[in-house]
């Protein structure tokens, strides 16, 4: 039984808290429905939560009873509250710039008191109707603006709006996630791999690594159907100035001979991302990994990295789940 805002709802066998509340007509926001995006955060003020419902939340939140309703299949009665802890910040779209044929950089004014690590993500919502999406932050906390990378999807409600949204207000919740540079291990080799706008958190990690003078070898792998989707190429090349050990690889699914091989400091290959990564890194037991982008690929890379010797605690994932269509 769930007690939510004074009403009792029986949970069916195997049903998630989110599904139960939605089935009873309650309004609860959600996006990925797989425990990744944290849109459906709720608080349990009484009742024991299954551990999986709090996976990836910060300890302080776990202790307060925050959990992810979409993956919480309760084994006992829960007294629930809406989440008010993840404070909302208001911001404004400052600039929108093209990065690739279907990717734009959206720069937001950094709200006062908004603390984050580059590579973490925020939930951005449109004040007029509450439409919400999650985006990673590629910029450093020392900058005045937050840089998000937005994939322009056909019929994308949020991306279609954001590309024309200069001057519009947005609200931000967060930051969330563990894809950020770890200080205190300047010699550890790092592997960063992502597809599409999964590059955004990886750029955040790289910029932070550069700021900290990381000395260990860093390999960045970016996957895209074609060369035009490998964006921020020259900016990443410029990062090799402060990160001499940085190596840049592009994985393409189609491309002409002239597009492949070495291009400046980049190396392009016509091969799936996992193949490009693991042909260079058959052993990963000393490495820290950051893996972002399309969910099934993220899961595959995580498993293969583990089998290649990486410790699970040193594999940081961010799966960019598409909004769940109701």
């Amino acid at each position, binding site marked *: 039984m769930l007690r939510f805002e004074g009403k009792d709802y029986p949970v069916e066998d195997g049903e998630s808290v989110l599904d139960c509340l939605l089935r009873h007509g309650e309004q609860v926001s959600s996006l990925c429905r*797989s425990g990744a995006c944290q849109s459906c955060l709720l608080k349990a003020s009484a009742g024991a939560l299954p*551990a*999986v419902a709090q*996976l990836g939340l910060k300890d302080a939140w776990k202790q307060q009873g925050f959990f992810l309703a979409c993956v919480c299949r309760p084994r006992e009665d829960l007294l629930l509250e809406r989440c008010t802890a993840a404070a909302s910040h208001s911001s404004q779209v400052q600039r929108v710039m093209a990065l690739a044929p279907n990717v734009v950089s959206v720069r937001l004014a950094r709200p006062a008191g908004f603390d984050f690590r580059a590579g973490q993500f925020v939930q951005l919502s449109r004040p007029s109707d509450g439409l919400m999406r999650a985006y990673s932050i590629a910029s450093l906390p020392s900058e005045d603006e937050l840089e998000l990378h937005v994939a322009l999807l056909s019929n994308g409600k949020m991306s279609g709006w954001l590309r024309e949204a200069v001057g519009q207000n947005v609200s931000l919740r967060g930051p969330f996630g563990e894809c950020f540079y770890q200080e205190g291990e300047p010699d550890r080799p790092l592997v960063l791999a992502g597809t599409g706008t999964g590059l955004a958190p990886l750029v955040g990690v790289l910029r932070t690594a550069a700021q900290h003078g990381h000395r260990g070898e860093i390999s960045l792998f970016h996957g895209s159907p074609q060369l035009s989707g490998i964006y921020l190429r020259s900016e990443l090349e410029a990062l090799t100035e402060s990160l001499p050990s940085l190596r840049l690889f592009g994985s393409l699914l189609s491309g002409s001979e002239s597009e492949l091989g070495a291009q400046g400091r980049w190396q392009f290959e016509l091969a799936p991302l996992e193949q490009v990564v693991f042909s260079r890194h058959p052993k990963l037991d000393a490495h820290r990994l950051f893996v972002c982008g399309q969910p099934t690929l993220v*899961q595959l890379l*995580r*498993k293969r990295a*583990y*089998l290649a*010797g990486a*410790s*699970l605690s040193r594999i940081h994932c961010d799966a960019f789940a598409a909004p769940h269509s109701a």
Partner: protein
Amino acid sequence: MSTSIYERLGGEAAVDAAVDIFYRKVLADERISSFFDDVDMDRQRGKQKAFLTFAFGGPNAYAGKDMRAAHARMHLTEQHFDAVMENLGATLTELGVPADLIGEAAAIALSVKGDIVSR
């Protein structure tokens, strides 16, 4: 009265040393990998840790009835069980555990075979 292999191997530290070796082996073993291929790898690793703690005769929360219920819907065969036993043995061999202790761990794991294998 002899102390458990868990204590003789070095307690939780021994399980920690074994769990990643064991989990990687079963994930890579095509006969059984599908049972271990969980999106939530942390939770799955936790289960392997509980299993190893149990096989080492250490403190654990494995109860016969739960064990049956948890495995019933997987329809496991004797071949699946044997594959897990092989990987357990290979893990301990890789860690340099003496043969008599490996035998003891195998005997503990075998004691629940009836709860794991269907029919």
